[in-house]
Structures are given as C-alpha cells and as structure tokens.
C-alpha cells in the first residue's frame, strides 16, 4: 500500500501543472482580461476553466468510485479489482505514448465557441488532457485504503467512495484555479502579452511523460 498522502499530493501537483499550462489554465483569462481590463473577468474565466476541468474529472471518477464500492462487497472481487488496477497501468502507458506520437488536440475542440469556456475545458480535460484517466488508479487505491481503514458499519460505502472521487477532483481543480489565476493576473497586470511567447513551453510533452510514469508506478505497486 502506498503512502496515503501521495494520491492527494499527486492531484494537487496535477492541478498546479495544468494551471501553469497556458491553454488549460489561463490563456483565455488573459484574453478576457485584456479585452475588459477587469480582474473579475480574469477570475471568472480561470474559474470557468477550472470548473470545466473539475467536471471532466468527476464525470468519470464518480461512476468509477461507485463500481469500486459495489465490488468491494466481497473479498474475491476485491482481489480482481486490485489486479484490474495494476492492469490499468498498461492503459496509462499506452495513453502517454499516444500523446507523444499524436500531440494535437482532438479536432472537435476547435468547434467549441470561445463563449463556452466550461464546455471547452470539460472536453479538453476529458480528451486531450485525460486528467480523470490519470487519476483513476489513484482513486481506486484511495478507496481501497479507506475501506480497510473505516469501520464498514459507519460509512455507506458508495456514498463514501463518491465523496473521495469528489475530493480528488477538487484537489486537482482548486490548485488549477489558483495557479491559473495567479499567472493570468501576473501576465495582464505585470509582464504583458510578450510573456506568452517568451515563457510558453510545450507542457503537453511533460504531461504525456507523467502518464507513462504513473502507469509504471501502477504496475510496479500493483
């Protein structure tokens, strides 16, 4: 069993990483900030991006947590679950390799109106970033740990599992919002637009590598 704090730190780290990543965290907020000269508009925009990302996490992690909670009812399926969790490592490695070979955004993302940042961030998180996929093995682990720790009679297992899914999603989305807002405000109020091209590096590549590392971790710890 891995350290219990690790999944939470991972989620927070993912949030900070994507908060720094211009398209995911703050680019649209800078555009809105320059158009309106309003800090409120910047924050509304980063909030929309982070909320869309939160929804993309929960839409996958909530059902996964329910399935896990149901399967937890007997010991046999629990063993299967642990094996499935480690097998998911192969999935993560595969997704990471795919991201390196095909780094482009899915084309349908460009069809989403710039007036719909929540929708765009939701689709972006679910497809291009694959954030819930990256977090799924961690979620499985957290629920297993909590099931062992908690007295079975005190918490309704399904409710508890969904709560953990919500918490993990928030643990990524809140740092994403805070980091994205800080960067957007700094660019608009201090560094100016030139910072966009000066400091923007391709963070997608690092993200893909993280998938591969997470996959390897899942396999070795399974």
């Amino acid at each position, binding site marked *: 069993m891995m350290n219990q704090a690790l999944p939470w730190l991972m989620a927070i780290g993912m949030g900070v990483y994507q908060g720094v990543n*211009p*398209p995911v965290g703050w*680019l*649209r907020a*800078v*555009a809105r900030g*320059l*158009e309106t000269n309003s800090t409120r508009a910047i924050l509304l925009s980063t909030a929309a991006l982070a909320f869309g990302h939160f929804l993309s996490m929960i839409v996958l992690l909530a059902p996964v947590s329910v399935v896990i909670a149901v399967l937890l009812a007997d010991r046999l399926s629990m063993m299967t679950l642990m094996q499935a969790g480690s097998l998911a490592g192969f999935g993560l490695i595969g997704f990471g390799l795919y991201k390196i070979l095909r*780094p*482009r*955004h899915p*084309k349908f*993302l*460009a*069809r*989403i*109106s*710039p*007036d719909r940042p929540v929708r*765009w961030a939701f689709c972006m998180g679910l497809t*291009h970033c694959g954030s819930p996929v990256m977090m799924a093995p961690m979620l499985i682990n957290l629920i297993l740990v909590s099931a062992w720790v908690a007295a079975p009679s005190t918490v309704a297992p399904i409710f508890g599992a969904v709560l953990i899914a919500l918490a993990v999603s928030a643990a990524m989305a809140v740092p994403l919002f805070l980091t994205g807002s800080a960067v957007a405000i700094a660019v*608009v109020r201090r560094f*100016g*637009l*030139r910072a*966009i*091209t000066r400091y*923007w*590096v*391709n963070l*997608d*590549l690092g993200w893909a590598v993280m998938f591969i590392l997470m996959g390897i971790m899942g396999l070795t710890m399974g």
Partner: protein
Amino acid sequence: MSSMVQMRPDPTFYPSAKLAMEAARETIGYVALLSKDKNAADALAVVDLDPASSRFGTMLNTLVLPHIGDELHHYGWSACSASLCPTSGHAFSERRYLVVPGIRSSRIYIIDTKPDPRAPKIVKVIEPDEVRRKTGYSRPHTVHCGPEGVYISTLGGKGVNGDESPAGVFILDCDSFEIRGQWEIDRGDQFAHYDFWWNMPHDYMVSSEWALPPLFENGVVPEALMGGKYGHKLHFWDLRGRRHIQSIDLGANHQMALEIRPAHEPTKDYGFLGVVIDNTNLEGSIWTWWREGGKFHAKKTAIVPPQPADPALLPELLKPFAAVPPLITDIDLSLDDRFLYVACWGTGELRQYDVSDPMAPKLAGTVKLGGIAANTEHPSGAAFHGGPQMVEISRDGKRVYFTNSLYSTWDTQFYPRGVPGQMVMCHADAAGGFRLDPNFRIEFGAGYGAHQVRLEGGDCSTESFCFASA
C-alpha cells in the same frame, strides 16, 4: 511531411497586433507570378527586401511550378498568429508552409519555406480532382490560417463551369494537408464567393461575392455587369458553428464585393469592404461593416469617382463610357487599424485613407502609377503597366508594396498592351501620407504577370489575433 511539433511557439506568431508591429521587419517576400505564355508554368518568386543586402530590391529566386495553367492568385500560410488563440491547439506548429492554390486549375501546392526561405520547395500537390471530389468546390482562392486549420475560399462549385452548385469555404488540415471537406453546415442564401476573414474571439466570419466562374474566367462580361449579375452581398457567419447568420445586400448596382478587411484589434467589431464598380456611375466604393446590438450593418463610407478620358486612349470595353472607372480591386488595412490602402487599378492610383474613425475615412495620401489612360511613370522614369493592384503593408506599417496584375483575361481587356509583372514599394509616414521609393522597382520579365505578395514573418492580410493590444 507533417511538421514536427515544436517545444516553443514560433517566434513569428504574435499574440497581438501591437507585438506584430514591433517585431523584426521583413527581409524577403514572395510574389505569385502568372505566366503570360499559355505553354509555360506559373512561378513563385522570392524577392530581397533587406535594405542591408547587396541584392535589396531584386528577385532572388523563382520556384517554377510543375504544371501549366494553374493561374496563381492569392495564397497564405498554413500557420500564423491565429495559432496562439486560447483554444486553437496549434500553438506549436510553425510558420513554414505556404498554401498556394491555382484558381484556374483548382490545384493546390504546399510549398515549404524551410530550411532556406530563399529556396522554397514544393512538398505536396493536391490535384484538382481531389479538391472537387472532397469539397464539391472548385477554383480555390483566399487562404487563411485559423481555429480549425487552414480555411480556403473557392470561387466555383460543381460542374465544368463551376456554377452548378454554390462556391464556399473548405478546411485543409494544417498538419497533414489533407482536405477535410466543406466548412459550411448552413449557408443560408449564400451562393457566390470571394474573400472572407473573421473576428476569432467574437466568433464570426464575414465573406463576400465576386461572381460564378462563367462571369470572370473568360473576362468580364459587360452585359452581366450592366445587368447587375455580379456579386453584391456581404455574408456573416457563426465561425465555430459554421452557420450563416445574416446577409446584407449592398444593392445590385454595387458590382463585385471583394476584399474583406476586419480591424485587427479583436475588441473592435468592424471592418471594411472594397466594391469594384457601381454600374450606374462607374464609381468604386469602400464600405464599413460593423456589429451592433447583435446585428451586422454596412454602410458606404467612401467613394472614388471615375475619370473622364479620351475614348481613343481607352480599350474597347470602356470606349462607350469615355471614362476610366477606378476599379477598386484590392484594399489592405495596416495592423494598427489606422490606414486603409485602396488600389484603384483602372485609374492607376493607390489611395491611403485614415480610418481612425471607421465611419468616416479621410483621404490622407495618394500615389499615382500606371493607369489605363493616365499611364503615370514610376519616379525612376520607368514605364509602369497596369495599375496598383495587390497591396501588402509591412507589419510595422512603414512600407507598402504593390504589384500590377489583376487576372489574366481581365488584364487583356483593360490593358490590351499587356501587364508585365512589376513590384514597387512606398514609404508611409506615421502621421499619414506616403510616396513611392524611386529606387525600388522589381521587374519579373515580360513573360510573367505579378499578383499577391506575402512578407516574411506575416503581413497585414495574413495575421489575425485573439488578444487585445495592451
């Protein structure tokens, strides 16, 4: 062949118009050359625009195309400043490939400008059959890099004459250069097509109409012109939704609605349109269009009158009128949205309007060169055939380049003595006013006409932005 993903955005992608103006000046340009000889191929010329170079103001190289009869016209970059838009997904592409359509052949060349921008190479050819089969369109024309990749407008639809179905826009993948198909989901009452551009953050496209191919491929058809059969509508579209929102009919006397030039500043909801000719009085006109209260509007805001001339000096087409129409065939807007240049190809004049107030353009300067009756010489003393036609403004707004050819069959009608290709340069003053550089004049030879100019690192008719200039 698809370009490698970069680790940093291309340094020639500029977040805002202001940053594009402040970037390093162009040192080379590309010019579309049109073969006058029907048995020779068109070419893309590379010209030296670096004043520090010993070959400044000369042609460095030509890339001769492998096919005959393409008729190069307009072309553009596969990636540009639009790639930096928040939701674009193309931030790590390169300004590297020129997408160069032939409007007569419907063939499209993908030309690589790296590693040596002075020696571009063809890396892909999309054959006319493929364009027709995958898009239902023909005669590809304007090229813009944008949210969904490369957008290409066409002048023709299906059928031998391209008039059996509407002309429109199609999308080319900006990495693989595979055709992805028609852009429009709902085209409303749009049928003919010419130019288009957009406001990306405000999510709309604006398009215009020249005419269907039978009305231009063999030359202007005078009866059709006098009968108001050429395009006279503006169309407004939902850019991401790909749907027609509204059309504005300018009135059937306003024949040939061509270049669309939106303000580069994305916070401004207006732009301009050039109309070639009014068939009731031969005037050319400039229109301002704008968005207000959720609706689009358009108004004629400047006119250029025809000039009376001795019929003996005029080609057959114009003799009955004893006048030369200005023929506004191109307009171009400086990146700071302050100066609109208006090419009057008939009268031989390039006008500079101060459009600080877009509803009231003020004539700020004028350059006279060539012209059907005027025949104004270049200040170097050399003859200039044709008139100012395709205009390109440097990003910093200080230099204005133009060429002299319009379209093969039209050149012959309006300038029967021929329009050997030339490119000249003007210097513009910050406060308004501009003049020809007597020392800059490039001849492309009697065998070639010269059309669109593209400048290294992007120019005023290629770059669009998602960020307001701070």
